[in-house]
């Protein structure tokens, strides 16, 4: 008699405990999966960044560091500029970003400076921070979120992730919605175009290969990227390959027109014969916008669309 009672009590307690845990976790996942427009982020928040790392944000960040131009732009676009305490050398937009102290550049983030600033969160993109630097920052309690968007949809989800982490989800949705509207407007204008062969010259015939971000933009515009038959994201093409692929549009993000005209053989391509060569000089706004997977990426998409299919935008 006593034994059965004990058994029932233990079972009840165990069921209760399991029930509580199940309920709690269900509640947590429902908080992070909610899609309603005005959601307040509940901390602690566990998210998975683009590299598959699970990161737990303890509380709403008050000090943020960004070591990639695209994240810096996202932060400012979401109205979080006042919370950004550190940026990378190449973050040149918006103008307000230039007054923030620099904590990193091409050779990587300056972990000493970042730790001194003591942010709660650091936003990076794949390749801008080594594993060692990341581990060093994390050992001091700083959370590192790494982005690696493969296409414009990826940029949207990254912006939304920033919104969720920093508790500005409504603003993030507003921003991505307006970007999507602009995107659809561009795509509708080129709905019935015939695909064109395009070559993107990043300098010395290095190009954006299969799987690269620029390649995803070209695919979205139904352009035929002549560099996508290679392996690797940044292949260098031989002049012979460029000439035999015969691109109709040649977009140079580095070499000047004079440099290109000095290369023997290019003049026989359709692009050169028809004068469809666009040089987007390094250091200009356009050059940033066509490569940065940030809030201005739709402007970049528009530049590509207008360059490749000028007749659809008259």
């Amino acid at each position: 008699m006593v034994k059965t009672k004990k058994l029932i009590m233990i079972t009840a307690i165990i069921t209760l405990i399991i029930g509580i845990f199940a309920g709690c976790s269900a509640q947590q996942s429902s908080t992070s999966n909610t899609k309603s427009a005005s959601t307040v982020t509940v901390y602690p928040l566990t998210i998975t960044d683009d590299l598959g790392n699970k990161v737990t944000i303890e509380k709403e960040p008050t000090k943020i560091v960004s070591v990639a131009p695209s994240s810096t732009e996202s932060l400012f676009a979401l109205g979080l500029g006042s919370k950004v305490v550190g940026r990378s050398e190449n973050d040149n937009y918006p103008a307000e970003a230039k007054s923030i102290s620099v904590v990193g550049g091409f050779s990587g983030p300056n972990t000493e400076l970042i730790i001194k600033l003591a942010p709660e969160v650091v936003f990076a993109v794949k390749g801008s921070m080594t594993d060692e630097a990341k581990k060093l920052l994390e050992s001091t309690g700083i959370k590192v979120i790494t982005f690696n968007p493969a296409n414009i949809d990826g940029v949207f989800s990254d912006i939304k992730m920033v919104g969720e982490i920093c508790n500005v989800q409504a603003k993030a949705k507003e921003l991505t919605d307006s970007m999507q509207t602009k995107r659809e407007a561009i795509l509708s204008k080129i709905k019935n175009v015939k695909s064109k062969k395009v070559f993107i010259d990043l300098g010395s015939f290095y190009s954006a290969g299969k799987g690269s971000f620029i390649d995803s933009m070209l695919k979205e515009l139904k352009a035929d990227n002549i560099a996508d038959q290679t392996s690797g994201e940044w292949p260098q093409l031989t002049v012979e390959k460029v000439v035999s692929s015969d691109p109709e549009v040649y977009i140079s993000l580095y070499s000047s027109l004079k440099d290109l005209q000095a290369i023997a053989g290019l003049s026989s391509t359709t692009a050169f014969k028809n004068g469809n060569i666009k040089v987007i000089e390094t250091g200009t706004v356009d050059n940033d916008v066509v490569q940065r997977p940030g809030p201005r990426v739709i402007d970049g998409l528009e530049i590509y669309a207008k360059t490749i299919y000028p007749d659809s935008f008259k």
Partner: protein
Amino acid sequence: MKKRSNKNLIIIASILCFSTIILSTTIGIADISFTQTMKILLSKIFHINFKLGNIKDSTIAIVWMIRFPRVMLAFFVGGALAICGVSYQGILKNPMADPFILGVSSGAALGATIGIMTNLDFYFLGINSISMFAFIGAIASLFIVYNISKVGRKVPMATLLLSGIAIGQFLSAAISLCMVFSNDFQSIIFWTMGSFNAKSWNQLVMVVPYVIIGFIIIYSSNREMDIMLLGEDTASQLGVDTEKLKMKILITTAFVTAAAVSVTGIIGFVGLIIPHIVRIVTGPKHKVLLPYSFVAGGLFMIVCDTIARSFMSQEIPVGIITALFGGPFFVYLLKKRMGRGI
């Protein structure tokens, strides 16, 4: 007997050169038939009137403006680097000497770096400003190395070698420093990797005179260079003006190397290994070693560059191919030679 076999060797070498150049021009990523290639080449070189009307413009451009000049440039640059390697190995009596050992490559790279950073984008006789800066840098670095090593009127070889290494390292560090502060470091890296991509007739025309004149000057001293192998003191006792010879060879090789490097960037390994490979076959006499090294270096470079540009649909840096193939081949030859007990 010997004369006849020498003559045979010359004929074989010439045929090999000719066929390799032609064959390499028919190879490439673009699908162009052998007959089409031959038609284009023959009509352009000998002005024979083949009906090229039905061949695409781009095909003609690929064969005549891209492949053929690239193959010829590879031949001359490969040959140039090889004979510079022979010269340095002879004068310095050092089997590890290559055309870049006296800091010439770092000088050229620094020149190119400065050219890239100052953004002076001009063209002079079809050669761009960066190549010119590289050329000046190469000559200047050798000038510095030579003058540092001078003791009175003599230039001891050991001092020359050590100064070359020291200056070379210093210049490399200067280049790295420039890269840290420059926004163009991508360009600088591209330049130092060495490539024949996008090089055509302009580059060929610039390099060939230096190479041919350089070869003639070096070849004219072939007997003195043989004697130098016995040691400087012995050579001067035998009547060789060692200082004058050294200066002559160093200046000539500096110009030849500078011309090659300013146009293609730094391509290692050829200047180091080809002289050894040829020496195993022809022996150490410079009269034979120089011309055959030129041919071997040229052909080797053509083969490596053809692989670099046709193996995959993207360009592989040719320096990787030269090392990948040259290394094992050299080891194979060494083992064979050791087995024969020479």
